[in-house]
């Protein structure tokens, strides 16, 4: 199983236009299950098509293992059909004039496999994906989920070294999606194939990927494990794109009571550094206190009004105002407050994400000594 190496890859569709992919450096390691995540139009699908060989590069080079497959400067382009990759399309792209079995056998026939071997492979993939019953049906006679399985089976049958998936689950309903996620994860474990898939659905990315590459405007924003992406977003875009409800961002440059309270808090707890432009707080990391706050608490304490309460089934989203600024909060415990109630909120210092004026994350300077407790909580009180 080879790795996939993208080296300074750019793709321009029109000479004058902005590049769809700009100077992308990415190494997808052997046996990895990597996800390209980003909003539509961020260049993630283009990246996938470049790796597949369905598009050609404008600059840079792509290697699969030690095989150079695309480099304009070196005059090398290996067409898609010779790269030994599998690609599952968003639309499934099953051939409507062939039955399920014929669809799956197509690639095997092209590889000149003899009939008994073909039959064996066919039986095996049909069984793996649980679609034996549909062998002689045409794609039009299958449901979306079944078509999805056939599309996957068709690519698995030829045993590609690398499997690419372009928004493979986006056309399925919620239940099927969950089922197929498990299926994909199982296949990856079973075959150990290097897998790369593209999605705009953060849950899918979080659930499946060993590493996630977040993209925006053709540029890589952050590369890391799902945990890293969530806990230490590299910039404001990643912080805002990952997580629902989205992260609360407070602009420190805009004069507001909350902003000045945050500024003071950062100073007192020792996290202040020059250039902080915005502070992000994840809704699920805000805690509602049962009663009056403990003044010795080193955490950030905020007095807020509950303006709106949105149940979402197992959890609740609270909309609050802190002296005119709106915050969202997410909790799993059934709230006991009515709309309009006054509450105390608590946020730990390490749960504050700091961003500079370019939106880049400011790493928290590891405090040399533990911060003194009392001064931190002191100024908080007057605001409410």
């Amino acid at each position: 199983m080879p790795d996939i190496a993208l080296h300074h890859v750019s793709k321009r569709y029109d000479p004058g236009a902005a590049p769809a992919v700009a100077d992308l450096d990415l190494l997808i390691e052997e046996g990895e299950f990597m996800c390209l995540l980003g909003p539509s139009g961020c260049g993630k699908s283009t990246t996938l098509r470049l790796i597949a060989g369905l598009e050609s590069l404008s600059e840079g080079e792509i290697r699969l293992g030690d095989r150079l497959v695309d480099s304009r400067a070196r005059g090398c382009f290996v067409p898609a059909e010779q790269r030994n990759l599998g690609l599952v399309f968003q639309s499934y792209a099953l051939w409507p004039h062939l039955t399920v079995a014929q669809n799956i056998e197509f690639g095997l026939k092209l590889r000149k496999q003899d009939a008994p071997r073909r039959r064996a492979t066919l039986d095996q993939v049909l069984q793996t994906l649980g679609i034996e019953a549909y062998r002689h049906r045409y794609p039009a006679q299958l449901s979306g989920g079944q078509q999805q399985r056939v599309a996957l089976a068709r690519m698995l049958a030829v045993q590609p070294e690398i499997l690419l998936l372009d928004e493979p689950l986006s056309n399925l309903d919620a239940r099927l999606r969950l089922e197929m996620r498990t299926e994909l994860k199982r296949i990856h474990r079973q075959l150990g194939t290097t897998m790369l898939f593209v999605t705009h659905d953060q849950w899918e990315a979080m659930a499946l990927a060993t590493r996630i590459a977040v993209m925006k405007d053709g540029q890589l924003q952050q590369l890391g494990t799902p945990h890293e992406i969530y806990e230490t977003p590299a910039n404001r875009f990643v912080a805002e794109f990952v997580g629902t409800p989205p992260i609360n961002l407070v602009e420190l440059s805009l004069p507001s009571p909350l902003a000045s309270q945050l500024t003071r808090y950062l100073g007192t707890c020792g996290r202040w550094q020059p250039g902080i432009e915005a502070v992000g707080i994840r809704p699920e990391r805000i805690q509602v206190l049962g009663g009056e706050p403990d003044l010795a608490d080193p955490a950030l304490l905020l007095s807020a009004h509950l303006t709106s309460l949105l149940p979402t089934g197992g959890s609740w989203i609270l909309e609050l105002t802190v002296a005119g600024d709106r915050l969202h909060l997410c909790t799993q415990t059934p709230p006991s407050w009515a709309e309009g109630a006054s509450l105390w909120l608590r946020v730990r210092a390490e749960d504050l994400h700091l961003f500079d004026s370019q939106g880049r994350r400011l790493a928290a300077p590891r405090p040399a000594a533990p911060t003194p407790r009392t001064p931190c909580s002191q100024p908080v009180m007057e605001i409410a």
Partner: protein
Amino acid sequence: MTSLSPALPLWRRVGYPLRQHWHRLRYQGQQLRQNPTSLLGLGLLLLFGYFIAVPVVSLLLDGVQVQFGDERRLGADTGAWTWHYLERTLFSAVAQSQFWTPLGHTLRIALWVVLLCLLVGGLLAWLLTRSDLPARRWLATALIVPYMLPAWTFAMAWLALFRNRSIGGQPGWLETLGVQPPDWLAYGELPITLILALNYIPFVILLLGNALRRLDAQLEDSARILGAGGLTIALRILLPLLLPALLSACLLIFAKVLGEFGVSYVLGLPVNYNVLSTSLFRSIALRQTGSAAVLAGAIMLLGLLSLGLDALLLREARKFITVGGKGSLHRRHPLGRWRWPALGLAGLLFVVSVLLPLLVLLLSTLMRVPGDFSLANFTLDFWLGRDLPFVAERHGVLLSPNLWRAAWNTLWIVGTAAIAAGLLGLLTGYVVVRSPWRPLGLLLRQLTFFPYLVPGVAFAAAYLSLFAEPRGPLPALYGTVTLLILALIADEMPYASRAGLSAMLQLGKDPEEAAQMAGAGWWQRLIRVVIPIQKGALVSGMLLPFISGINGLSLFVILAVPSTDVLTTYALRLLDYNYPQAANAVVLLVCLMALVGTLLTQRLTHTNLAEGLGH
């Protein structure tokens, strides 16, 4: 890599950029090999350039170059530039009868035809799609029938009815019945206009009906909820939204009538009534190639102008056109007490445009003396008789070897051309949709559509003059079937390429790319994925040209020689021999072939023929 320091040795300074250049070339070569769509497109461009553009250009050049035989009179060598033919055709003493009068006739006929088609066709399109007209399903099929039949069939039927003493030969029905029809009723402008209008009404019904069907009924409903009455809705909502379809129908009919030959030839000749295309035919027959070129140029120019106008107006109209998603939910307007008169109108149209002509033709093949309805006058001799007292055919047509030879010729000549045209059409559609190089697609589209504007007579003449002697890789083709087939293919390309294009537009890239991922090269993708998926479209792309080819007259009139006799030319010759019964019998057979072909197309592809344009 551009800032090469002068310290480098010379071979590196020169060699490095050279190698870069070579790499870039190789890269493009590799991509071209992987996806030779553009190469295929270039091939098609060359092919169509040779068989469409070159004949047209050479035809037009004939109008400004001294023609063979005119050297002495014009005092210049063959091929020298001259204004002579333009002057002669447009300003000389013969200009009036050769150009200006026919031009006036053509324009008058074309405008009247468009107007009649629009009024009758528009009303019927609405009745058939939006009202509770009785028997609308049956009528929707029945009223389209004239569209499948050759227009000159109607001319033959008209002649059988109204023929008078102005021309010799057998009498018309009315004459036998004791009424002498006047010339203005029997020949010339009135019958030509009426017949062409009847022939093109289905075209409006199809195009407008389609547009009406696709129009979201909610657009009308919202207007009604806001308090708009029926007339307001029709004028302020429906009309603007249907304008593109209306304009297209009008201008396509207009362009087609300009080059129309058969009807004007059959009905205009007896009273010396000329339109541009018959005047063109006469020039060709008289070997006045220069004048013929000017006339053909004038027809093409008018066609181009009307299409240009269409494109211009369409661009305006497209700004507000919406095609509804769920347009199929239609409430039908109750016609109330107008229900039966409306049915009467639709029925009348069916009788006049289908039943009557075909019946007249059929009866005329069964009567010894036309129009005499006594039982003794009826006979099957013209179909099945032996030893008949006619010079042209001694036996009934069904027993005549000439008929079967002509039928066989029609089938295989037109069939070959249709299969070739269908394949080329699909390939053209493929290149237009898939080629990364846009101008190529655009050029191919324009080029393949161009024969629509060239009158068949002129196109045939151009072929004759161009390929009569060896040209490039082609040997001299005068009088050969090859020439006829080539001309037919070129002439049918507008329909074939449209069919191919609309089929390819509906096929996304995914199936092909999936095949590529499975390891299929370009040819394998084309043969094992694209063509099988497009099977139905391919068949309809072949049958449409086939029907149109069977009906065609103008190409055959000029390019067919006795050995390549087809049904249409055979019918015309029988008419020339003054044997209308047999001629009409042959015409009926042509109609039958065209009808069967059309029904087959619709059955095979479940498609609507509106996409295929006029005849």
